């Protein structure tokens, strides 16, 4: 299962598919990031019960790794898997945004 997601992510990165997220959906994703991810990571992504999601602390992971975490969660921590609500393509888009400083 994890392997399948990883393969999808790598395929997505190598194609230009990430750009194809509808602007309305982009707005929804940013809203979700701010208000729902924000309940643990802080509305300004400065961290809370979960770690800060700013470019500097995220530097040590690739966008694919971050997308993987968004989709599958982190066992042993409160980070849940978001794949019922976010597609691999959308997760990668979010991950890239997080790495390139986004202020929701």
């Amino acid at each position: 299962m994890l392997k399948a997601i990883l393969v999808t992510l790598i395929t997505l990165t190598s194609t230009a598919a990430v750009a194809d997220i509808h602007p309305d959906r982009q707005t929804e994703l940013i809203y979700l990031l701010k208000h729902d991810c924000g309940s643990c990571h802080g509305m300004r992504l400065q961290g809370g019960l979960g770690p800060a999601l700013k470019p500097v602390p995220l530097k040590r992971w690739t966008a694919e790794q971050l997308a993987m975490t968004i989709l599958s969660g982190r066992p042993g921590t409160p980070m849940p898997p978001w794949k019922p609500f976010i597609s691999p393509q959308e997760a990668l888009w979010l991950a890239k945004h997080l790495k390139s400083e986004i202020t929701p």
Partner: protein
Amino acid sequence: MRTLLKFLTALLLIGSTNGIAGESDSGCLTRGTGDMGIIVERASGSLKIVDRTSHSILFHVDGLGDLSHASAVYSRDERYAYVFGRDGGLTKVDILCGKITKRVIQGGNSIGGAISQDGTMIAVSNYEPGGVKIFSAADLSLVADIPATQVTEKKGAKTVGLVDAPGQRFVFSLYDTGEIWLVDMSNPSKPVIEKHQNIGLQPYDALISSDGRYYIAGLFGEDGLSMMDLWHPEQKPRKILENYGRGNKKLPVYKMPHLEGWAMAGGEAFLPAMGQHQVLVAQRGSWKETGRIKVHGQPVFVMARPDGRQVWVNFAFPNNDTIQVIDTESKQVVKTLTPGKGALHMEFSPRGEEIWISIRDRDEIHVFNTSTMELTHKLSVKKPSGIFFTNRAHQTGL
């Protein structure tokens, strides 16, 4: 002549109030605060100060920083609200004047606070750097700094579930290291810290019973809660409601439950399960499980109406558009409401005839009559989250 004099005096008095009843020249209200409250506007770092009786907004206050997950306590005269912000800000707000009296950035990243039994100290719990700082309620000057157990060289454990307890004490839990600490501030210059270790895995929040006797921490890392009888600290914290999830798959939790607010009704406590769409019921004292109520999603707040007859529950994403009402006698869900997406926070009026609910995505507060469970009023508030009424000033743990 005397009548004329009275009339002239009355005219003078009216003139001095700027034409608005109860408002003085300074723009401050001259009234009691017992039916007032504040509502946090999380996205804009602002507050609305409200009148509970007329269901109206009295003031808008800006400049409180990052208010995601903000909470507040009140001074014992119910005039000042102390607001704890995510950016480590501690702000003292004069609710009669609608103004910030004092604001300090006391930590990097905070999660909540408490006011001491005698009202002289404010304690703030921090995620970063981890630990609790205690301030003078009067001028927000630092009284004591209590660093948490170190987790790494730079980081202390995240402190959660901070409450006040009788005997000038504060009680809190340490998320990363699984501890409960009691801090006795009877002598403010010499805090006495009592540490209890191995209380359970990843305590994420806690509550104290309204009489100040029982402190209960919810655990994320295992099924169960950790309970401490503060009348008998020598008995140490012990696990209660262990293994409530046994035999069931643990469901993902998209928002951590909040234990602040004590759902105690008819001698039983109603508590949110973690990773199960259930409300757990336990007998006060023995803490034996007496029931489980299947609900609509992962419970976040489980709050008892002040008379204990109903428990109102809201839910984590993706079910946060729903509120359920449980009848505590039959332990049945008697009503399911869908007021809108982002039904984040609930606050009962002190005698329970009303409940105010923040509906984030509608930018509204919905007020329900708790007998009929019908919507009675709406208020416009931008991205509302926490609602805090002044009666909290006189309640241990709130």
